């Protein structure tokens, strides 16, 4: 199972980084989403992988899984979900306003934006 989880994190991270490097808003946002999935699984695994054990101490339990990473993941999911929503809105605004979905600052693209704004 360790191999499965580790390679899952690895594949997600690799795909995420590849997409982020495309520097167009859509792939970049998908890429950041993949990276956040990867990091969520990673955080989850940081409490060690324990199968079918309760997350709390109980009288009957002889072993238990660490509950803290699960709570951390919950926080991380909420935050990254909110952030992704924000970035989608801002990126859409930028794309619709300038007709350009480059993430990096393109000399030519920005000049075009300036011209557009001047024309208005």
């Amino acid at each position, binding site marked *: 199972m360790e191999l499965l989880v580790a390679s899952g994190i690895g594949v997600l991270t690799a795909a995420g980084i590849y997409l982020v490097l495309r520097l167009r808003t859509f792939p970049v946002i998908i890429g950041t989403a993949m990276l*956040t999935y990867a*990091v969520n699984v990673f955080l989850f695994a940081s*409490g060690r992988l324990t199968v079918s054990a309760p997350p709390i*101490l109980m009288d009957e339990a002889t072993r238990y899984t660490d509950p803290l990473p699960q709570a951390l993941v919950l926080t991380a999911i909420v935050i990254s979900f909110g*952030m992704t929503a*924000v970035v989608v809105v801002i990126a859409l605004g930028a794309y619709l306003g*300038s007709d350009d979905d480059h993430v990096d600052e393109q000399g030519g693209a920005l000049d075009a934006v300036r011209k557009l704004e001047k024309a208005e």
Partner: protein
Amino acid sequence: MSHWTVAPVVLPAMLAAFILLATRFHAPMQRVFSVAGTVALIAIAVGLFVQASGGDVSIYQLGDWQAPFGIVLVADRLSTMMVLLTAVLAFFVLLHAIGTGWDTRGRHFHALFQFQLMGIMGAFLTGDVFNLFVFFEVLLIASYGLMIHSGGTQRTHAGTQYVLYNLLGSTLFLFALGLIYAETGTLNMADLAQRVQAIVPSQSSGIRTAAVLLVIVFAIKAGIAPVHFWLPASYANAPGPVAALFAIMTKVGAYAIIRIYTLVFGPDLGVAQGLLDTWLMPLALIGLAVGMIGVLGAVRLDRMVAFAVIGSMGMLTVAMSLFTETGIAAALYYVVHSTLATAALFLIVDLVAEHRGRTGAELRRARPIPGANILAAFFFASAIAMTGLPPLSGFLGKLLILDAAFDSPQVVWAWAVILSTSLVAVVGFSRAGSTVFWKAREAAEDLEDDPGTEMDNVDSKPEAHPERQPVLPLVAIGGLIALIVAHTVLAGPINRFMAATSAQLFAPEPYITTVLETEGKKISYDGGHGSDDHGTEAAGEHGSEMTPGAEEEAGGH
């Protein structure tokens, strides 16, 4: 345990929600509450500062849970100093935003402003790394809103880049935190400091990776080369007052580096050897050079100041990367100076761009602006401070850094780069100042017959002159410059305080014992007898979930 420690976080959080819900359609009321809240924040910050300046470390246990199971806020010299600096800066920035009417050019400026303050204050006060992440997110999400305040295509475009870059930074932060938790089983800074020392060098690869990942995250926030690329476009396109407030955001990154790398990964720690102490200095010098060359090469005033931010963060990092007591003391002196100087410059650039109509912040000749004399004087003063010429605090700060670097093995490199980039920055700033303020008179004659941009200035000049020159922004800029002067005049006592702060950072035992040994509610589980156990179990379950629960609460306000 005094409740005042948590007040700098709670007050803006409550105020932001109040402004958002109760006064959303009353711009004057928003202003009143926002200013009143910020003044109260200054008062609280002064109180905390005085309390901590004696060298006491006071903590606040959220929900009364004992560390490391609950989250603690820690107020020591460094954090209260940063809290005070933030509050004072926020006050002047707010005056400027109100005076220029920036706050009414979009919605929810004041609510976002207060949320931003909440995040910054929390980041300075928290004693838990995961909580630090949460407060980073709070300040970032507020800054996304402020960054694109009042809209505009170019600003939104720059905003996208800013948000994405920081989103990647946050992901990296989580990876680092996951690694730290996997290696040590704790996220409380004081607890971490103890547990990291117990790691044997042969099994230190995980924690070393985490240490490097963390510094990359903080370097992104601080705008240290080579991860500074988000900074120029974001700061240059953000509204003037917002860019001025962002002057403290880069310092949040610097603060985090200072805090983590003195407390947790201290300079004497065996497993962290060969990391920051070897490669932070070269990167800092590269950042310094990039920033100051950018100052010389910029074609717009706002971009020029943004590059000056990169340069000054580079300078600050040079001082930090020494990781000696004198180095950190010099860095702290420079933090205050750099925050005030960059904020003043951004506010001045905002006024200049406003007055120049369509020429805006572009670095070319244009008609003289109304009230140019006082603005030019302010620009002159802050440029002197920024470039580190005598007699203002930039010079003293640079002197302290040069002095601190004297014993370092890389002294030749540090001195050469610092001194030569200072010259470059002086040239850059004097070019900008003379283009904007001195060549304006010739331009007025040359462009007399040129219709277009200058004509509407002429038309609106006679009647609009008095109201186009609101006093409040000038008061804000004047106040910041007065603080720079005070920072220079009182350099002796301030420097003694910084030395004491630095000494406290390099002797973290009181911090650690205060955090870990202050009594609070505990998780206890003794197991095995009767129905009473369910009570303790419930408490135990709550305790371990308390950490994220409180974090979510802090994030969700």
